[in-house]
């Protein structure tokens, strides 16, 4: 997943199919009872599920619980899941539903202001190294902060879905098929406008 961390162009087709093939092998092995394969899958996909849970407005402890619950649920359904794309879609949807369930229990209210938006990140929590963000990235972060809560959540989830899996995951999320659903399309459209505005504002 590291290759997608950069803001450069996404990986090419061969990288993507390699990754999908590798995940398919791990999925088969996990179905066969390999704890090691299951461990590799959880290591690879848990960061995405963490983002899904946090995007739903959960606190850190609840988010960790929800990610664990999603994986535990998966064990009972592993036999039904045939391809990696279905695996990712299933996990994202299950994590999101579980996050909603926790929130609707009244245990946690969605914070009016997402605390993670309070400051432009310079580095990961606990990381030694300061990361220098360029103006484009700072403008992007300001633009995110101006989006509706719904668009923030949606784009945050989509940003962590591996590119070849957009189709199946957006279908699983209940967004109309096509490369982009209308909701996501509108959110992407909005952030493009906001981003342009932020960049213009800086130059003005």
């Amino acid at each position, binding site marked *: 997943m590291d290759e997608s*961390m950069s803001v450069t*162009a996404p990986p090419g087709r061969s990288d993507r199919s390699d990754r999908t093939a590798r995940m398919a092998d791990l999925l088969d092995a996990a179905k066969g009872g390999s*704890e090691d394969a*299951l461990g590799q899958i*959880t290591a690879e996909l848990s*960061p995405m599920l963490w983002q899904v849970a946090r995007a739903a407005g959960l606190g850190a402890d609840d988010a960790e619980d929800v990610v664990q619950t999603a994986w*535990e649920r998966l064990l009972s359904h592993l036999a039904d899941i045939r391809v990696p794309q279905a695996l990712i879609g299933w996990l994202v949807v299950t994590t999101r539903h579980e996050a909603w369930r926790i929130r609707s229990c009244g245990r946690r209210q969605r914070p009016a202001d997402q605390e993670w938006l309070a400051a432009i990140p310079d580095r990961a929590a606990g990381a030694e190294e300061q990361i220098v963000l360029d103006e484009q990235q700072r403008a992007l972060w300001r633009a995110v902060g101006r989006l509706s809560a719904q668009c923030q959540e949606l784009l945050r989830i989509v940003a962590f879905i591996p590119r070849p899996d957009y189709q199946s995951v957006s279908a699983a999320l209940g967004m109309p098929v096509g490369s*982009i659903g209308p909701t996501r*399309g509108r959110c992407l459209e909005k952030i493009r406008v906001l981003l342009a505005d932020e960049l213009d504002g800086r130059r003005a």
Partner: protein
Amino acid sequence: MKSPDDGPGQQLDELDFEILAGLRLLFELADPMPAGLPERVRFALAMRGLESEVARLVAEEDPRLVGARGTERSRTITFDSHSLSIIIRVEENKNGSVRIDGWLAPPQPRRIELQTSAETLAAAADEEGRFAFAEAPSGTARLVVVGAAPGDQGDGGPTVVTPALVL
């Protein structure tokens, strides 16, 4: 700038992908997953993966602490689960490995596995519930009393797993 609602066939363009990749980086910086979460998940799954009972350590007796006979170094550990108890005695062999003698209560013939990070050893409990691993590697391991597969003979209850123990 084109409309986002041109139809179902519309592809994301490179700017969309750049924005999404940029968001990914920013969210990873602003709110990274706690580093220990995958390990926590892996452990939780390992405990549940066999749809098994997890036995609880209920007693551990170390003769070195209660007055050992001679220089023999052995300890006795008892695990309890809903369907059975497992009692093991662990003794050090001269070559650094350990010998494990165990009993199941109630007594029953079952397949017993000793799972270590490197390998899985297998033994069979007899009618009296006795089993032994003559030479097991020292280190971290757990015992699995394997449940009967459908169609197997014997009354085989559910799979029972002990917590990891250091041999």
